[in-house]
């Protein structure tokens, strides 16, 4: 069991080195950048992989953090945040209305809010579907700046390996569950969650390759592997877990060479000191807003970051920002989030499959939305 715990913790660290590792281990790691071709040397990702456990005291901090993260991703998928947040608030607040007022009102508020969300989502989907259909596909060699649609295969910019299946990939996320008995009920309970973070990667077609900065993208790609006993045994490290019989690991990876569809905003990568400073400040801001990462710098464990500890964190972030900006001067253009529009889509589906999957969801959400709102109104008016 100790070995198992060791592997669990070592897995993510093997896959993505921390800045401190980079300093110690001569930066470069040898990996296969392109399947079927000679090994190339790629640096480790500049940002640390995120890895959280949900046992004990830390779980009480990490669990709400993960819930908020997932909720934000959900909102990005559903529609414009200024509409979805109030509706979500109404849905979540409805049970409290039920406590103080009539239960019928609580149902009415919930149903109406969910119905309106579904109604909005139907039109958001329609807008996305048409945007995908309306945008012509560019070849990477001659890709213009602005909103573009490109297709190609995923290639690594940084060395990245999925921690459990050991697949060379451009993105991974995993969840580790343990079988637990709680009173009369038994089931898998989430014990650990981790992801590679949004590590920049390339998309390559037959003419060229372009850098993708996947921060804030709607990612609908990746293969999910459920490595629960006894079938997960064939997948590398998963064998160790399958023996215990009470664990389940779900790992989602975008493997190297995966055909991807990307729709996003193409623009030149900015360079220069000013940008590096901006990038550094952004890194610091991110660190400040992430209590789990900040806790890594609390060396004396007193629960607060002293001046010396903060200086250490600043140095690390400076190094990460510098590495991020200077390790590859060849990237002159990248695709990232649009400054104003929310459409930044990464999918492993073909364009037609993507629009077809949206096509049936549009009437579904539209009808669902109208039905729920009418249901909500009926509850509200019920004597």
């Amino acid at each position, binding site marked *: 069991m100790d070995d198992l715990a060791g592997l669990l913790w070592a897995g993510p660290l093997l896959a993505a080195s921390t800045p401190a590792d980079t300093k110690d281990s001569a930066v470069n790691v040898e990996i296969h950048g392109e399947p079927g071709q000679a090994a190339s040397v790629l640096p480790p990702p500049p940002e640390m992989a995120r890895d959280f456990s949900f046992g004990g005291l830390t779980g009480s901090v990490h669990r709400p953090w993960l819930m908020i993260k997932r909720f934000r991703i959900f909102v990005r998928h559903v529609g414009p945040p200024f509409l979805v947040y109030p509706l979500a608030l109404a849905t979540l607040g409805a049970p409290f209305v039920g406590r103080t007022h009539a239960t019928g009102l609580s149902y009415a508020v919930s149903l109406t809010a969910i119905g309106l969300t579904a109604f909005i989502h139907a039109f958001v989907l329609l*807008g996305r579907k048409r*945007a995908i259909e*309306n945008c*012509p596909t560019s*070849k990477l*060699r001659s890709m*213009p700046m602005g909103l573009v649609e490109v297709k190609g295969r995923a290639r690594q910019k940084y060395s990245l390996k999925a921690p459990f299946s050991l697949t060379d990939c451009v993105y991974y996320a995993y969840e580790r569950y343990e079988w637990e008995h709680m009173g009369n009920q038994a089931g898998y309970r989430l014990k650990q969650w981790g992801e590679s973070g949004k590590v920049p990667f390339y998309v390559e077609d037959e003419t060229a390759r372009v850098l993708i900065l996947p921060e804030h993208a709607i990612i609908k790609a990746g293969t999910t592997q459920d490595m629960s006993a006894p079938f997960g045994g064939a997948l590398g490290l998963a064998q160790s877990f399958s023996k215990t019989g009470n664990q389940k690991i779900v790992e989602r990876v975008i493997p190297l060479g995966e055909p991807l569809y990307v729709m996003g905003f193409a623009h030149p990568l900015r360079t220069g000191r000013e940008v590096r400073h901006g990038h550094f400040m952004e890194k610091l801001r991110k660190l400040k807003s992430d209590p789990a990462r900040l806790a890594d710098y609390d060396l004396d464990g007193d629960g607060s970051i002293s001046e010396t500890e903060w200086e250490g964190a600043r140095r690390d972030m400076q190094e990460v920002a510098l590495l991020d900006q200077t390790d590859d001067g060849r990237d002159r253009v990248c695709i990232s989030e649009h400054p104003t529009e929310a459409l930044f889509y990464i999918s492993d589906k073909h364009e037609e499959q993507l629009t077809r999957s949206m096509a049936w969801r549009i009437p579904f959400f539209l009808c669902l939305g109208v039905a729920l709102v009418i249901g909500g109104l009926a509850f509200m008016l019920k004597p």
Partner: protein
Amino acid sequence: MASLIVLSVLTFSLLAVVFYFVIIYNGLVTVRNNVDKSWSNIDVLLKQRHDELPKLVSVCERYMKHEADTLERVIKARAAMANADSMDERRQADGMIKEALKSLFAVSENYPELKADRRFGQLQSRITEIENEIADRREMYNESGNIYNIRIAQIPDVFVAKLFNYRTKELWQIVPEHREDVPVSFSY
């Protein structure tokens, strides 16, 4: 109660129609602008090629004293492109530039000193690169035009397109002479 449900169904239907109309209209505006943008994107590369051609001619002049005709054709084709207004004139001028460049690069094989010139090598590869990019962007222009033409002909977009007088866009087609078979003769 029943009347309220009917009223809400009507309200939602009306909202749905309005949203749908807005999405269709915005979509049409986007596709029309995509076609114009694709055309402008070709222009950007044509301008780059326009700027590179005199440099190429001046390098060639030093070595190709007896190829004034070939060089002149490049210059004339460049001028024709600069003066072209309509899409048809542009297509013709583009065809002329392509032909002239093809002859120039073919003739350059007879001048080893020119071939060895580093600047010529750079310009040749730069122009070839631009040519490839122009070809890609033409393809993209045609794809944008095709999407637009299909959109304005399809139901329900056709109703909005007719209402706002959207007309079909002409696609980029090659000069008819370029479709003709190339005569090949083996003289050995």
